[in-house]
């Protein structure tokens, strides 16, 4: 007998169904996206003009810190886990995730972690104010008392990510339908498999670094305190040993989504499947040996600067392979431009721009000029917003008809795309210029010569924010009803997920499908 979902709230609390959990992850992520977005708008509103208008510098610093933490750990990562939950079992012909109970846990501890993190805003001394990179000793000796809660919330997020990653690896390695060999898996599955290994390797390092902070703050150790024989630079090494692989955790699954969407709308198979797999694996490997490109200015010996400079530039090679493959897939395809495809094309173009500014930053002597300026802010927003966020959005539009059984409103989708596309470029492109001209990041006030570009950036930010309301509205309308989607949804898309009915029934592939 096929079980349906339980009625009421307990369905969501006790569910072990991968589709339910996937949906919860996605809604949670969207909530965090809006919360982090509001914080970004506080930042941009303050920076609309030079001088202090709206918030005090202390609160401004809390906003930049919380914005970064919430977007990285609350919006981007859970969204990818949500997509993994929904799609990986359906893509490999598995009935559910391998460890459904752990799946429930890994989701349900997240709201607690973020409630704890958000509650620091209301504590004495305010929320953490030392930036999402929380460099010691700013985050130890000079930190507000709420830092302890920040540390615990990071521990919980880490536990959630590690459980999620274990589940994904177990599902992919143990639950594939007969005939689904590794080299037949869709690229989204491949990129997630590699991402999950990255998570298991580096989330414990993050947990370790915050634990050392906790000990320094409360138990009298001196890991990062020079007075006691420790070294603040050690913090940066440990943090970035986590931090650089972390930025790839936020982009590898995106590569997978884009590699699913472009072939569908170009009506050609993906060009260079196996080179995509190897490129992903080499990016993951290289991401462990480039961390000190965030630290060119701490005073490394020349040999170190050179090593990290060349290693970083090496990453551009496999990344270039990917961009080449996507472009070649589109080349002479019979392309159509539905919303998911628009987001995917924007991804390819804008992510490449972000890669190029990354290459500029990778030049160690030049980085002395660019480091800690708005140029860095421009770089990582070009790789994260059109990279991670656009790919998630593209994935949602692409699979939403399969999830809900209804087509989203195409006009509204296109409006969303163009608002977001214009808003994003208006926001972040000028940041390259003010950065090169020397405007430091993480400041609430700035010199007059930066005023014009900042004003433009702030207007773009509000436009980008407005675009997300259109998105929310479109998704809610699609969940509630709309034109029925066919089982295939798109024109001859590839993948097992399109062989099940739309909406996908509560249980799919209870008997494994035949894989050709």
């Amino acid at each position: 007998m096929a079980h349906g979902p339980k009625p009421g709230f307990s369905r969501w609390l006790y569910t072990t169904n991968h589709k339910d959990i996937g949906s919860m992850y996605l809604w949670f992520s969207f909530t965090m996206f809006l919360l982090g977005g509001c914080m970004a708008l506080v930042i941009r509103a303050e920076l609309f003009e030079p001088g202090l208008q709206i918030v005090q510098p202390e609160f401004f610093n809390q906003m930049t810190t919380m914005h970064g933490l919430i977007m990285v750990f609350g919006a981007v990562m859970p969204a990818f886990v949500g997509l993994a939950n929904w799609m990986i079992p359906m893509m490999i012909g598995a009935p559910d995730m391998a460890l459904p109970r752990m799946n429930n846990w890994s989701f349900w501890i997240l709201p607690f972690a973020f409630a704890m993190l958000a509650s620091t805003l209301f504590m004495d001394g305010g929320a953490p104010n030392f930036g999402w990179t929380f460099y010691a000793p700013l985050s130890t000796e000079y930190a507000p008392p709420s830092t302890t809660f920040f540390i615990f919330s990071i521990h919980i997020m880490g536990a959630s990510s590690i459980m999620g990653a274990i589940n994904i690896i177990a599902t992919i390695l143990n639950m594939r339908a007969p005939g689904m060999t590794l080299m037949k898996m869709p690229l989204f599955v491949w990129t997630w498999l590699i991402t999950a290994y990255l998570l298991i390797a580096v989330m414990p390092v993050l947990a370790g670094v915050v634990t050392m902070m906790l000990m320094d703050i409360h138990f009298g150790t001196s890991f990062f305190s020079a007075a006691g024989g420790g070294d603040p630079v050690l913090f940066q090494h440990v943090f970035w040993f986590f931090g650089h692989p972390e930025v790839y955790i936020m982009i590898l699954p995106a590569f997978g989504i884009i590699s699913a969407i472009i072939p569908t709308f170009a009506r050609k198979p993906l060009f260079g499947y196996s080179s995509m797999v190897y490129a992903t694996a080499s990016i993951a490997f290289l991401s462990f040996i480039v961390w000190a490109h965030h630290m060119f200015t701490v005073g490394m010996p020349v040999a170190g600067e050179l090593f990290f400079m060349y290693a970083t530039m090496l990453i551009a090679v496999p990344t270039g392979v990917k961009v080449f493959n996507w472009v070649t897939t589109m080349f002479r395809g019979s392309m159509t431009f539905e919303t998911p495809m628009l987001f995917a094309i924007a991804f390819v173009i804008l992510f490449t721009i972000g890669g190029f500014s990354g290459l500029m930053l990778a030049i160690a002597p030049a980085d002395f000029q660019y480091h800690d300026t708005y140029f860095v802010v421009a770089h990582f927003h070009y790789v994260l917003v059109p990279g991670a966020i656009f790919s998630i959005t593209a994935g949602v539009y692409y699979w939403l008809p399969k999830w809900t059984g209804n087509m989203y409103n195409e006009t509204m989708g296109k409006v969303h795309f163009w608002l977001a596309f214009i808003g994003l470029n208006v926001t972040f492109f000028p940041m390259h210029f003010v950065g090169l001209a020397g405007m430091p990041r993480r400041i609430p006030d700035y010199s007059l010569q930066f005023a014009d570009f900042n004003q433009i950036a702030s207007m773009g930010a509000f436009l980008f924010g407005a675009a997300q309301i259109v998105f929310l509205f479109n998704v809610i309308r699609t969940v509630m009803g709309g034109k029925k989607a066919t089982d295939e949804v798109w024109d001859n898309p590839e993948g097992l997920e399109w062989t099940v009915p739309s909406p996908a029934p509560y249980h799919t592939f209870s008997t494994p499908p035949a894989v050709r």
Partner: protein
Amino acid sequence: MQLSENAKLTAKLLALAGSMLVFAVFIMPPLYDAFCDITGLNGKTGDRYEAVPAAVDSHRKVKVQFVASQNESMPWDFRPSVVSMTVHPGEPVDTVFLARNPTTRDMVGQAIPSLVPFKAANYFHKTECFCFNQQTLKAGESAELPLRFIVDPDLPPGVNTITLSYTLFDVTEKFTRNLNNKNADSEREG
């Protein structure tokens, strides 16, 4: 069967995660210290040096400059008695730093050395240094803090000036807390 396969894999992955945690907390910091010691990175100078008789290279002159600064919350007066001296490699040299506690409470200070250029760090030997211990000064007390060093005759050619800087930290709170609670004292202390 399926279940036990998952359990096995989960155990393996958890072990991987656990070992990465151990790596971050217990291996990376000592590894980093060792790395800095070997390379002289960050201007970390070595621990107490056992003087070995060496020929004084009286043809070569090296200028040694001294810098003293206080960490922001440290109220002591702290300065070198001479700011610069010219020495010959191989020759043991004595100097003192002057410290005074102008406050009305007893305090403990800890000086942390740093040396540039980094490539000279392994060729600057301290046979006696106040930075090897914490310094306790009663309210209003002042002291002469001794330093005895030898510049290694193998100092790379091209290094003609060495700057040794000390930053003085207020560790009163930490020190008294550690006295009360020896267990909380980490091995990294000192």
